[in-house]
């Protein structure tokens, strides 16, 4: 009966491991939230695993307290040693665990790993650094660490999407790094693009001006990312209006699309006739973006769209206006139905 006993023994082991994790999780929570005695060293693997899973969930003082507690068991030193392994698997495993633990003591070794590693390990080191910085209390030490990571990002290339993913993990530490990356005239286009995208995704309106300065960059990917960010941030500074209107005539289609989206952030009086005109663009995507922007400009924009549906000289512009108006009416109906029928009651 050997073939059937092996899976059974594996499932027994898995069940025991799950039970051990659950029991350790409870013990760590009791220690953190209710001041129970901390476990005595050395920690078992289940104790480490459950502590790191819990740490990954915690924000604020409780999270910092658990990190400090784990440093008391020298877990940071063991993970840093493992991160320097010549074998890839333990190295990646250690990087993953360090990203959960957020040890400030691991910051410098992580930056070194970020600069010297291959692409996969670099991304994981970047994630660990960003999560560590996100939990780092404000102050001169964090400022210095942010400056170090900015230099590392400039020195060690990451694909634009991966760099943006890492930067979004920085949370409150992000503005300092984004501002530095966006203010360098000789910045690599991929990094500018990543920084601009991050500003937009994080809704960092205080960096609107820094992003806006790149909407006329020679690289179309950068122009597009800067315009996309402005569109996400809403209002567009007036001093950028000329460059933005120029971008509506850009030779690259995806730049014109983003310009049409961003244009809704300009004053209505300025942008209504421009968007009306760009409804006649040769690209379906630009026409769609222009129509959607008009729709978001309130009553004036809707009236312009209705006029375009009736009498725009371009047949495709008329079709697109009618389509976007019809889609918006359907969407409004879909949203209203459940809310109107059953208003939610929140207990006082």
């Amino acid at each position: 009966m050997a073939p059937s006993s092996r899976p059974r023994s594996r499932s027994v082991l898995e069940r025991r491991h799950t039970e051990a994790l659950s029991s350790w999780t409870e013990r760590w929570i009791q220690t953190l939230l209710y001041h129970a005695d901390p476990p005595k060293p050395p920690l078992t693997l289940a104790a480490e695993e459950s502590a790191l899973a819990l740490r990954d969930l915690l924000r604020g003082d409780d999270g910092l307290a658990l990190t400090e507690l784990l440093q008391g068991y020298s877990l940071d030193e063991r993970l840093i040693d493992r991160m320097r392994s010549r074998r890839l698997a333990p190295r990646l495993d250690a990087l993953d665990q360090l990203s959960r633990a957020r040890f400030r003591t691991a910051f410098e070794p992580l930056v070194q790993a970020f600069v010297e590693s291959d692409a996969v390990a670099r991304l994981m080191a970047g994630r660990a650094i960003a999560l560590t910085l996100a939990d780092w209390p404000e102050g001169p030490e964090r400022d210095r660490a942010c400056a170090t990571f900015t230099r590392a990002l400039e020195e060690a290339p990451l694909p634009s999407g991966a760099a943006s993913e890492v930067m979004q993990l920085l949370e409150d530490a992000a503005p300092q790094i984004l501002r530095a990356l966006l203010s360098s005239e000789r910045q690599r286009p991929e990094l500018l693009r990543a920084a601009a995208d991050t500003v937009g995704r994080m809704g960092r309106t205080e960096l609107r001006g820094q992003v806006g300065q790149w909407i006329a960059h020679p690289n179309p990917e950068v122009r597009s990312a800067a315009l996309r960010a402005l569109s996400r941030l809403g209002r567009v500074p007036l001093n950028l209006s000329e460059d933005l209107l120029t971008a509506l005539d850009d030779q690259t289609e995806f730049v014109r699309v983003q310009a049409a989206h961003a244009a809704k952030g300009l004053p209505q009086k300025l942008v209504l006739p421009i968007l009306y005109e760009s409804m006649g663009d040769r690209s379906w995507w630009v026409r769609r973006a222009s129509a959607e922007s008009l729709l978001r400009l309130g009553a004036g924009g809707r009236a312009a769209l209705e006029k375009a549906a009736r009498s725009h000289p371009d047949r495709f512009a008329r079709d697109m206006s009618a389509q976007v108006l019809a889609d918006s009416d359907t969407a409004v109906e879909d949203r209203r139905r459940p809310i109107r029928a059953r208003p939610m009651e929140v207990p006082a």
Partner: protein
Amino acid sequence: MGAILVIDDDPVAAKLLELTLHPRGYRVDVARDFTSGRKALEAGGHDALILDIFLPDGSGWDILKYLRNELHLTLPVVVLTGHRQEDFAARATEFGANGYITKPFSPRDLAAQVEHLIG
């Protein structure tokens, strides 16, 4: 004080919520997936729901819509998710959630929010 249903497939998150809320006087029921969560809601008896969005066998959004539009329950819902898609907070409000919290989170803040919602 009240009964809270937690629908979350992450055992650590579920345990953390349970050990945060139980000492404050709440009964905490945990469902680890879409199916058992839906059943628990149908059975009723809860004063608040803490809801994860990505569940192994379905979506928390569907649970939220089911709760509001099919069961017509008005109990407060806090969406708790580890994913930070840009539109999630807006979608949570649109589907009738009363709170939206991303992981990592402070268990004390979450408990305060639940206490505020239950009243």
